[in-house]
């Protein structure tokens, strides 16, 4: 057994902050693929990606609960919280790029890789040295300089073991105010319930749930509640069939999925604001989207930082961002051979704004004053 990279509560908090960023980092790729699907087409694929995205939100919230339970303060607005795409994720010895792509076989391949179970062949290989040219690398160790994990699964293993160790050393580890926890009344999702974290047991359950929902348990493709792990959900898109109970991992036997790869807006992969014509209306709209997204992260930060009821408002903001996302994606990106625009997720540091920017066609909107 190698030496743990989590020695104390501060280390643990840094790891949980990294986990928060990791869980978030998968959202823009899922959302880009999801919203690139043309309205009223590709129902099977759209539902699979949507459910995965919603459950990444659940994971994000669970990490926030663990962080709050040990007295940390989740911050989704810190510089670098949203990675620059393409980002990198480990795939054992290798790594792979995570781009913002339209729904395509390449995107599905990436999603499978993100969710694929990855157990290190030995404990020594949990931590590997990170190549310098792969930045941002999303599962780097926040405490061991220049090191990254074998897989997301190993990253969570490290956190869980560190948690147990720190909890054993520090009886007051779970010192967070329970009122900061996000309970099931604030977050709803079919694939798993919100876990309120108050002690080692609930913290362990939350972390294990995150790892298991992505990669599946060792025991099979379905978990105890009969839910299919994300990896296998995405595999269905590659294998062209739904899984059903009793299936072997390689051969789903449910009904076929119908996929139409052409009913997709072909957005520019990992577009940047620099790709937009300078000074154009479209560039302004893309910047506004980023500002709105930044405002959403600020609102989520407030929700995770003591005001969980705000999560309900944050969900409404996400619904509204959906409309902005769709609008951008339907616009051709001038000078890019028919490729379409897409959000760039280049988030400016929050300019002291608590509220999401409210815009409609470039005009300020506001509430009716009674």
């Amino acid at each position, binding site marked *: 057994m190698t030496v743990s990279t989590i020695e104390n509560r501060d280390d643990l908090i840094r790891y949980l902050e990294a986990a928060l960023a990791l869980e978030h980092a998968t959202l823009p790729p899922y959302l880009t693929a999801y919203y690139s699907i043309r309205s009223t087409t590709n129902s099977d694929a759209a539902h699979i990606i949507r459910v995965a995205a919603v459950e990444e939100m659940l994971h994000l919230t669970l990490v926030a609960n663990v962080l709050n339970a040990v007295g940390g303060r989740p911050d989704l607005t810190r510089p670098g919280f949203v990675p620059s795409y393409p980002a990198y994720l480990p795939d054992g010895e290798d790594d792979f790029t995570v781009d913002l792509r339209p729904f395509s076989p390449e995107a599905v391949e990436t999603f499978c890789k993100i969710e694929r179970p990855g157990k290190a062949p030995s404990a020594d290989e949990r931590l590997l040295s990170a190549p310098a040219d792969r930045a941002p690398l999303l599962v780097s160790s926040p405490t061991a300089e220049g090191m990254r994990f074998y897989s997301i699964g190993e990253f969570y293993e490290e956190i869980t073991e560190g948690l147990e160790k720190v909890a054993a050393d520090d009886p007051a580890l779970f010192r967070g105010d329970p009122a900061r926890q996000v*309970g099931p009344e604030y977050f709803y999702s079919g694939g798993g319930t919100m876990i309120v974290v108050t002690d080692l047991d609930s913290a362990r359950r939350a972390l294990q749930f995150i790892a298991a929902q992505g990669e599946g348990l060792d025991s099979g493709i379905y978990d105890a509640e009969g839910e299919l792990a994300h990896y296998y959900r995405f595999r269905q898109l590659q294998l062209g069939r*739904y899984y059903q109970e009793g299936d072997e991992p390689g051969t789903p036997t449910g009904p076929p999925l119908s996929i139409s790869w052409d009913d997709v807006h072909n957005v520019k992969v990992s577009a940047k604001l620099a790709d937009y014509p300078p000074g154009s209306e479209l560039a302004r709209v893309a910047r506004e989207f980023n500002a709105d997204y930044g405002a959403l992260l600020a609102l989520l930060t407030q929700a995770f930082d003591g005001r969980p009821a705000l999560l309900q408002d944050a969900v409404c903001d996400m619904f509204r961002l959906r409309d902005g996302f769709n609008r951008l994606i339907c616009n051709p990106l001038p000078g890019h051979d028919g490729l379409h625009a897409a959000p760039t997720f280049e988030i400016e540091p929050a300019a002291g704004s608590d509220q999401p920017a409210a815009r409609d066609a470039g005009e300020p909107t506001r509430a009716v004053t009674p």
Partner: protein
Amino acid sequence: MYEKFPEGAAQRTDPAVAADDLYDAVIVGGGISGALIAARLSQAGRRVLILEAGPAEDLTLRGYEDYLNRFYEAISKDNQAPYPALPNAPMPRGTDVRPIVPGAPDASAYLVQNGPFATDTTYTRVLGGTTMHWEGKTLRMLPEDFRMRSLYGEGADWPLSYDDLAPYYSEAEREIGVSADVEDQAYLGITFDDDYVFPMKGLPLSYLDRTVAKDIDGMEVELDGVQRRLRVRPFPQGRNGIANPDYDGGKGYVPQGAVSAYQVEVGERCQGNNNCVPICPVQAKYNAGKTLAVALRTGRVDLVGQAVAHKVHIDERTRRVTEIEYRRYDRPDSPGFTTMRARGRLFVLAANAVENPRLMLASGLRGSSGLMGRNFMDHAYLLAWGLLPEPAGTFRGTVCTGGIADLRGGRFRSRQAAFTIDIHNDGWGWARGAPMTDLISLVDSGSRYGASLRQGLVDRVSRQLQLAFMVEVPADPSNRITVSPDFIDALGNMRPVLTYDIPEYTMRGVAYARQLSKRIFARLGAEDHTAYNPNFWGYAVHDGEGYEIRGGNHLAGTHVMGRDRTTSVVDADQRCWDYGNLYMVGGGSMPTVGTSNVTLTIAALCLRSARAMLARLDSETAPVNVTSNRRDAAPTSGKAAW
């Protein structure tokens, strides 16, 4: 959680094999009544066959999205827009209705209207029934609604009291998944157990409701010498909200989302699509498919779709039903059918308050009381519409989140009908086709375009307030469903013929409602734009004033329940007085409709009846003689007339 619909369940039962089976119960109709009874009987180990007139298709997400796309593509977005029109199992559609010329029944659509009053009332003949398009309001009836004759000399008394039904209301609220807060719903005698909470917390009132409440809360109304203060009150809703952790003694509640066979988690909470009628796009609203999925998962429920009940066969000697003869059409889009039969110990007609008596009357079973098909009831809706002084964000939320319920009960009911008032979040949509009609008039005759059009839309649409007065209609034996060999549908089934007039008692309530709406608008500082068109198909005159009256799709009364076989069709268990193994269930059993949307009460009645059915099945251990009075029970083929 999503509801797993067993794959292939709609096709796995071979009707020919089923014909040789003796089920514990044969249920006609796969709507909420049939689904609840099937669920309860099968959960208790009983074997059930459901005959469904709609297409024999699994409830899948793809099928549901087909409904949704049909709705998106439809030019008319009425309450049947998402659902396929089937010549073999036709259904009334609100857009069918025409003014009736006295003496000439309007037979232009499936529901033959004999008048004198024409109604746009509907029901949906697909798996899941009318809960596919119901709005989802789940008001309990008032205790006094069960004693209308004794208390007010109007309508009829039930053989049940509120207290008898209360536990089943609670059970129905669990099954449907009702979102409400007890403190908002305990009024006018409605009581709850001390520790009761609804499965989910109440949905928030809309901004429009709140705008209205600012002026209306506290408004005094005197009626029959009694002062009341009105308030805008949230309605209980059969759609998913925030689960109440205190439910069931602290066990909590898990909202049931979309029906699907595969991994689709959606609909765990209402998203405010503002489209409860005709279709909730995410299935946050309850539909009976959710209960059917539960029933089918027991493995003891067989389902035969495309099966339109044709005749109820009885044995005159034993006074029992022996079989239900049905016509199973081969395909939704072709006229071929096979005549089949279904046999059981019990038979349950769970079609609806039009189709239940239609089937009995078409079978020549008029009932010893002579009341089969009589006492047809619905709610009479009076709309009043105005413009609020400021934009109130109309067209947001569920179709209706709040309203005024303070005039649902009281002494005045000895003289005039009571009502519930809905504040419609969809503005003048029902009354005048808003907002499309506003758009058209602003553009075509208002010279609006660009910014002036956007301004006009905010001025004209975002300020809309429509009040819908849901006025009670008492039982009247002359309001009735009949059949006639003159009116036959494509499969050779006799079509329902409706004879309907709005009673004076109801019209007095309507007239009062209109006066009250003027006061409400004045108090709000709203411009009253209400104007009733004499050419409207539902135009009714009372005391020299004319009103537009619309149907409520709250069908009731046609096989009324009672204590006495001479004055009712079914008993308090919804068992037919005339035939010991026949239950007629649903709104048809209700002696009064009060001022509640009927589905919750129907569900409570069916859950209560399911207990009675189980007790009856348990008591009948002796083999049932199922000799058919038809010698040849083999399937025969036919061809529908289209």
